[in-house]
């Protein structure tokens, strides 16, 4: 056995016997992918159906018609909750929203049909949870669109009736206008440009996000491995008085943790592909350079941390802080578009931003290795910086 191999085996044994390792590096990210993906589902899957509750205080033919119109809209399923009272208070609204965990409530007010019949301005109320702006915006647009159609139909009917008589007007509307409203002769096709990234779905966000975030936690193991040998186990001095080069001592660790990081990310992506149906794009192998570069950043960062702090607890806290900050600012923890503008402005300063960009480019746009070289280069730049600082500060003998 060469010294190099002996050292790699020792590192792997240490990780394998560490009760925290499996939980932190595999179980936690996988669990979060599953749970947070579910939570993010409505946010990303805009084309899926929203259940929207509705209270009809009017109960006229007009209100029934508008409800049917809303229900026919793609992406919205109207749930008439069968409100029997004549009025609806603010407390009633809160009660309805709380009961079924709805985010919005449509209320058709008393007098809606009468206003419509007489050509007056009509309105529908939309109550929304202020924390769910994205939902309410979608529902409001859909409702407004439907009301606009109803308003136009009413105008057509009125104009046609004055010109051709009511019977002929109804026939024209029924045979010519209504079918066009139900099946419009125009469609909006959703296309993606080559330059701009496609919007990720929930798994395209959470799988790379949590895999990259928890891989970075491997830096705590890198730092812990060196620190514990120096300060706790006291095996470091024994190792450096053996006839082994300093290069071998450092390189064996780097190789071990880079390989572990790559294996961790590969396993998480493969699990997500197998269990969640995540698409790995047209060139799944293009993910490997990203994994390699991210594992290098992680290892280099862990190495650097051992040179900055000499006590275990402070070092662990700093690594945890760095992992969360980098993941949050880089769009791994939550999607970039949810971040405030000032945070988005500094995102390129953290490794997770580049790694997320590269992963999502491979997953969503089918990018090949050549397309993600700038992102990989940025990650290798981070690792070179961290290694350079670490080597500059590292002391084999304290």
């Amino acid at each position, binding site marked *: *056995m*060469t*010294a190099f*191999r*002996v*050292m790699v*085996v*020792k590192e792997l*044994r*240490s990780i394998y*016997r*560490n009760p925290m390792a499996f939980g932190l590096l595999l179980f936690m990210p996988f669990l979060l992918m599953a749970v947070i993906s579910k939570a993010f589902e409505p946010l990303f899957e805009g084309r899926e159906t929203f259940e929207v509750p509705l209270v009809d205080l009017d109960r006229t033919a007009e209100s029934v018609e508008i409800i049917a119109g809303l229900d026919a809209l793609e992406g919205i399923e109207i749930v008439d909750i069968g409100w029997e009272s004549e009025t609806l208070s603010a407390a009633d609204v809160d009660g309805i929203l709380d009961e079924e965990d709805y985010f919005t409530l449509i209320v058709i007010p008393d007098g809606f049909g009468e206003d419509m019949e007489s050509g007056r301005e009509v309105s529908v109320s939309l109550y929304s949870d202020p924390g769910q702006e994205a939902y309410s915006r979608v529902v409001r647009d859909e409702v407004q669109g439907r009301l606009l159609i109803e308003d136009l139909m009413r105008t057509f009917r009125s104009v046609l009736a004055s010109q051709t008589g009511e019977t002929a007007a109804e026939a024209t509307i029924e045979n010519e206008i209504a079918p066009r409203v139900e099946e419009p002769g125009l469609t909006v096709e959703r296309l993606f440009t080559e330059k701009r990234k496609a919007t990720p779905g929930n798994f395209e966000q959470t799988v790379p996000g949590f895999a990259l975030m928890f891989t970075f936690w491997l830096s705590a193991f890198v730092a812990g491995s060196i620190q514990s040998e120096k300060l706790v*186990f*006291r*095996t*470091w*001095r*024994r*190792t*450096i*008085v*053996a*006839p*082994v*080069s300093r290069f071998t001592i450092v390189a064996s660790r780097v190789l071990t943790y880079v390989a572990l990081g790559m294996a961790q990310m590969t396993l998480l992506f493969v699990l997500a592909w197998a269990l969640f149906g995540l698409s790995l794009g047209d060139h799944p192998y293009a993910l490997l350079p990203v994994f390699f570069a991210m594992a290098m950043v992680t290892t280099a960062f862990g190495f650097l941390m051992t040179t900055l702090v000499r006590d275990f607890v402070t070092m662990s806290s700093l690594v945890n802080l760095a992992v969360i900050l980098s993941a949050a600012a880089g769009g791994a923890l939550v999607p970039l578009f949810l971040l405030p503008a000032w945070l988005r402005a500094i995102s390129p300063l953290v490794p997770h931003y580049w790694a997320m960009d590269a992963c999502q480019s491979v997953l969503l746009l089918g990018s090949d290795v050549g397309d993600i070289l700038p992102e990989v280069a940025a990650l290798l730049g981070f690792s070179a910086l961290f290694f350079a600082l670490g080597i500059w500060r590292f002391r084999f*003998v304290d």
Partner: protein
Amino acid sequence: MDGISFAVNAGEIFGLLGPNGAGKTTAISVIATLLRGDGGKVCIGGHDVAREPSRVRQWLGFVPQETGLFPMMSARENLEYFAGIQGVRGRDLKLRISEALEISGLQSVADKPRAIYFSGGMRRRLNLAAGLVHRPRLLLLDEPTVGVDTQSRNLILQNIKRLAAENEMAVVYTTHYMEEAEILCDRVAIIDHGRMLVCDEVAHLVASASGTTIEVTLADPSDEFEAALAAAPGVSGVTRHDDRRYAVQSADQERGLAALVSVAGRNNVTFEALRVVRPSLEQVFLELTGYELRDGEGR
């Protein structure tokens, strides 16, 4: 360190003794290539430690003061690691590990998955085994028996003595336990404040110890007796250990005994017990380094 110079031959056990802060661990660290001296020269097997550290390391076995082991690995895995980084491989590796386990008396627990659950004595024995698993030509032992039970200590000392003789292994041994050094070492150097005070064979040092101590227990002690004894010719000092026990120091054993008998007779004092204490390495050590406490002078 200043002016420390000694040579250790193959098969010899050399003790490096000194109070806390004397420079023992610093000396060991320089020999082990961990520290670089700003002057002087250390050669091992003809290789200069400063110029050829990697060649020197091939000669070394190092047993640090703290147990330097991987707690999450078994005894066998620890030995595999320490032998492996010394370049031992193949059939030799298995043979050496088996030998080291036997020496340390850990065969029955060799494959228990975690050394963290070993007792203090077992860890110390494994610590020693890890330092000699590759059969080094020079074994550096930095206080290897601290906090060890009597049985483990006995096994450790016996094995060091046997291996040094059988394998022609030179041993540099630091310890605070003088009786251990007296039993184990062929020669010792006593150092203090970074300087070497003496370097000689243990027997010579003990023989050179000045004076004799006579321990006496009295049936009816008195202050008058103590004062008269202290003033008697041939007595250099009297130390009262408790109500009835005294230690009498004399430059000459016969004159000291005569003075003691004479003063006892004059004061009508009866002896309950009397013992002449043979000079020891500890006595030599204390004479050379003094009785002053050395708290907080450790590394």
